[in-house]
């Protein structure tokens, strides 16, 4: 099953997604990157219907790019999250987008932020967040482990432990995962 977890730490936000693309009972790919960068300091991780997931996240990315081109200054993470929420809300009673997203970003002056959005246009700013059956195990783990001065190393260890737990207990756990981090230097992938 699809797995997305996000952790906000001191000066950074980290996101982990399962790297499998599945059609019914067949794993099509083991290296699907579900974390899309929106500019240099914001990224969005999506889970949900395969079509909506990609189309909607690319739609958000295109709008963020257009704003930056038009106005010579990029949207903050909060602005992107709220814009996305608005689009999901409008689509909800027309043609709902079956996509759940985590928007993670770093803004100068504000620091790191992590936003949870779901297909019903829920929007929450959170310290830890996630989707999928795996998150049922891992959210409570992270509730115990998280603290406000979390370092990157601690967060990465939390991600590793979360993946281990999912592989241990979830009957259909993905074998491969992607982890990305965003901080003041931008976005980078962390090899597990």
């Amino acid at each position: 099953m699809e797995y997305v977890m996000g952790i906000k730490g001191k000066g950074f936000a980290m996101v982990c997604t399962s790297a499998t693309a599945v059609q019914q009972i067949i794993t099509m790919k083991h290296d699907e990157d579900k974390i899309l960068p929106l500019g240099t300091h914001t990224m969005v991780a999506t889970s949900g219907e395969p079509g909506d997931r990609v189309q909607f996240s690319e739609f958000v990315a295109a709008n963020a790019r257009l704003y930056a081109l038009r106005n010579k200054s990029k949207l903050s993470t909060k602005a992107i999250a709220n814009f996305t929420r608005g689009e999901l809300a409008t689509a909800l009673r027309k043609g709902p987008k079956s996509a759940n997203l985590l928007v993670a970003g770093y803004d100068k002056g504000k620091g790191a932020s992590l936003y949870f959005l779901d297909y019903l246009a829920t929007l929450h700013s959170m310290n830890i967040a996630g989707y999928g059956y795996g998150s049922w195990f891992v959210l409570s783990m992270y509730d115990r482990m998280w603290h406000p001065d979390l370092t990157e190393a601690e967060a990465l260890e939390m991600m590793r432990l979360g993946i281990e737990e999912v592989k241990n207990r979830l009957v259909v756990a993905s074998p491969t995962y992607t982890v990305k981090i965003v901080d003041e230097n931008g976005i980078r992938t962390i090899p597990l």
Partner: protein
Amino acid sequence: MAESAYSFSLTTFSPSGKLVQIEHALNAVNQGATSLGIKARDGVVIATEKKLPSVLVDKDSVKKIVQLTPEIGVIYSGMGPDSRILVRKARKAAQTYFMTYNERIPVAQLVREVATVMQEFTQSGGVRPFGVSLLIAGYDSHGPQLYQADPSGTFFAWKASAIGKNMTDAKEFLEKRYAEDMLLEDAIGAALLTLKEGFEGAMDEDNIEVGIVGKDHEFRCLSKSEIKDYLEEIL
């Protein structure tokens, strides 16, 4: 004159490449009461003459300087009713932005929205250009800013500017008095002095309006007693 043959239709260029209706709109602006603005290092001030047609008019009900958002205000020169439409559209544009992004609209973007509306009315059927120029003052994350928007839809950022009846003399005066590192307090004084230059009759706290926005990001109009104090200081 060949020019006048092309002044009937707004959307037709004259042979010399002008849109004559826009020139006429600018004339309407230049007949309006003088307004001016000065951008200081830590804020912006805008001010205008409040010349009322008769002593019977209820002075306090007339407010020419208007707030568009908590940190952006505007003054006009020209036809008052036209400015009201633009104020409505600007306020709505600002709230639409807030609904989308949950953040306050940057000054430059609000100015662009207003200027776009003004341009649309120079290229549509059955409408005429707005007979106002606007001076928009705001303080956002990019600092204090002062913009002018004209009936043609052009907009510029200014350090200091004047529009309306006395604009040429006022701009000359401002050029001499403006300093890059001016503080808001000095700018208010300079604005009042500049207004006084072209003022017919005695200038007091009843026949001018002054609006400021400072580092607190709160646009507000000065009260009559505040204006009185500033006038006493400079005179």
